[in-house]
């Protein structure tokens, strides 16, 4: 029984990291139709910013979160403004462009900071562990889980309860009609992309104490996060949550039962089959084509 709960908690922990990374990807993909292959690099930038602030400015992880969000969001805004906004109606080219941007970001970090591994310290207040259902769980993982829920709630409120969210949803429906009502699509897109990038940066900062920080750390995350988005359905935030935790539990279980290669291959095959048979995701209803 203990092992079962341990497995569940591991799954929840993996799921919250997945959701953290996928949330930004989902917002960008769902609202702008852009598969952002540079998303992993935003995660990486967040982790490096955390390392930089800690090692050079002595700022703790918790205190750095807001500056990290702002910094990565700003980079995202610049990329949207000067690269992606030039590629309206060329979806295939946007994946290529974001992929190129990803290479540039990764190489840029490698050339300036170097490719050796970096480490970020846990916040001292969260470095102990607590007991949940008779099991000892690291406080930081509990904290991660709570932060993820808060960020999700904030994102949901932004999308559904604010003017900018309403404008974004209007643009998603029909860009030209929205524009004729005076909505500045360019500005909304820029802000959306920046917000998604900022979220990725936060995700990178938050996972940095758990894993080592390196220029290519983002690549793995983007695949998993993309899987979450595809599974959850493009325009459904709730679906994203459900699929993040389902995948968290699944990969926990598969890793426990099988070797890593098989787990990876199975995840990829699942993506292929899912796209083929339910491109709209598992948690959305079919609508008129």
């Amino acid at each position: 029984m203990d092992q079962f709960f341990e497995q569940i908690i591991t799954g929840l922990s993996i799921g919250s990291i997945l959701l953290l990374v996928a949330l930004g990807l989902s917002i960008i993909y769902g609202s702008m139709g852009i598969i952002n292959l540079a998303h992993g690099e935003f995660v990486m930038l967040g982790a490096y910013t955390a390392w930089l602030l800690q090692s050079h400015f002595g700022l703790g992880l918790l205190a750095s979160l807001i500056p990290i969000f702002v910094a990565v969001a700003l980079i995202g805004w610049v990329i949207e403004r000067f690269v992606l906004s030039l590629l309206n109606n060329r979806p295939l080219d946007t994946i290529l462009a974001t992929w190129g941007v990803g290479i540039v970001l990764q190489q840029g970090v490698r050339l300036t900071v170097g490719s050796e591994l970096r480490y970020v310290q846990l916040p001292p207040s969260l470095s102990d562990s607590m007991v949940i259902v008779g099991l000892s769980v690291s406080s930081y993982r509990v904290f991660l889980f709570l932060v993820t829920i808060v960020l999700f709630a904030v994102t949901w409120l932004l999308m559904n309860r604010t003017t900018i969210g309403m404008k974004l949803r209007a643009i998603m429906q029909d860009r030209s009609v929205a524009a004729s009502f005076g909505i500045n699509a360019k500005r909304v897109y820029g802000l959306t992309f920046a917000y998604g990038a900022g979220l990725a940066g936060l995700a990178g900062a938050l996972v940095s104490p758990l894993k080592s920080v390196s220029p290519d750390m983002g690549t793995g995350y983007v695949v998993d996060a993309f899987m979450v988005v595809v599974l959850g359905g493009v325009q459904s935030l709730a679906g994203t949550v459900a699929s993040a935790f389902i995948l968290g539990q699944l990969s926990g279980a598969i890793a426990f039962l099988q070797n890593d290669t098989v787990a990876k291959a199975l995840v990829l095959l699942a993506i292929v089959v899912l796209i083929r048979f339910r491109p709209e995701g598992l948690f959305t209803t079919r609508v008129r084509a």
Partner: protein
Amino acid sequence: MQIAPILIVCAVVFALPLVLNNDFLLNKVARYLVLGILTISLALSWGFGGILNLGQAMSFGIGSYAMAMALKLKTIPVHTGSGGLPDFMVWNNVARLPWFWEPFKSISFAIAAGIIVPALVAAGLGWFIFRSRVTGVYVSIITLATMVVLNLVIIDQQSYTGGFNGITDLAQLELFGIAFDAYGRATFYLVATCVMLSLLVAFAFTCSRAGLIVQAIRDHEGRVRYFGYDVATYQIFVFALSAAIAGLAGMLYTIVMEFASPTFLGVQLSLSVVVWCAVGGRQSLVGSFLGAVLVAGMQGALSESAAFLETWTLVMGVLFVLVVLFLPKGLAGLAQVAWHWIVHRRQVTQGIAHGVGRTREGSA
């Protein structure tokens, strides 16, 4: 009809050994030419068919392994253990040659398989994808994921595939009494002949009605259906043709490199092909070919120094983004514009003011 650039490029390729008197250099150039063939195959499916295959290296890898398996079995008994088993199988305690290795004792079977297997795999995958009208970005994701799965399987099944190390220590290919030493002229001319063949086959296809219909599908898939064409069949066809050419390139790569490796069907190579194709011009066969040869060649020249290579990757990234943004037709498109401009100016100066630039965009 723009066959002239193809003929010029082929002539230059065949003339290269006259200029390059260094076997080592010749081998390197042959390598880039092979990568050029691979890029032509992508131009066919992406530039003409609108199918961005991010797993193009899968067909390349299959071809490469087909050739490597045959050449490995030819090394008996040097790099084999008892009973003619490849060395890595002996190390992994495999008792008998697996059934799917048996036919590769025949070199003709291997050559046929190197082309036909990728084409069949692509046709099967294409059937899976296009029959259900999966389009655009989703096609790219499926192709990429499929390739990674195959890559993982090959690495995982070490006792049958050589795993991470690939298949090394190969014999030389011998056909019609000619030995194809990786550093010899014979190999270079073999590669050059295949460059010409690939360019001509691809060109013939783009000039056929089927090629025209494939381009129409790229422009407006739905519209083509209402003229009575079965869109999926055309997509599957161009997908398989492209895979066959990539398979040919893979076989040549094994001959030139003298081994096969899982990296040949890796994400890195697959994405590099996309860059070469985009930079050279995805809607131009010659352009994409030259894009690969030039970019890969330059990368090879710089790879002597690790620091240079890192910078080069950064420069390539920036260049790639710029090409995607501002030169959707790549350098070939730029060349076309320049050519029109020159022709136009000459006509204007000569006072002939009509019949300017009658060209079919997208050919050659």
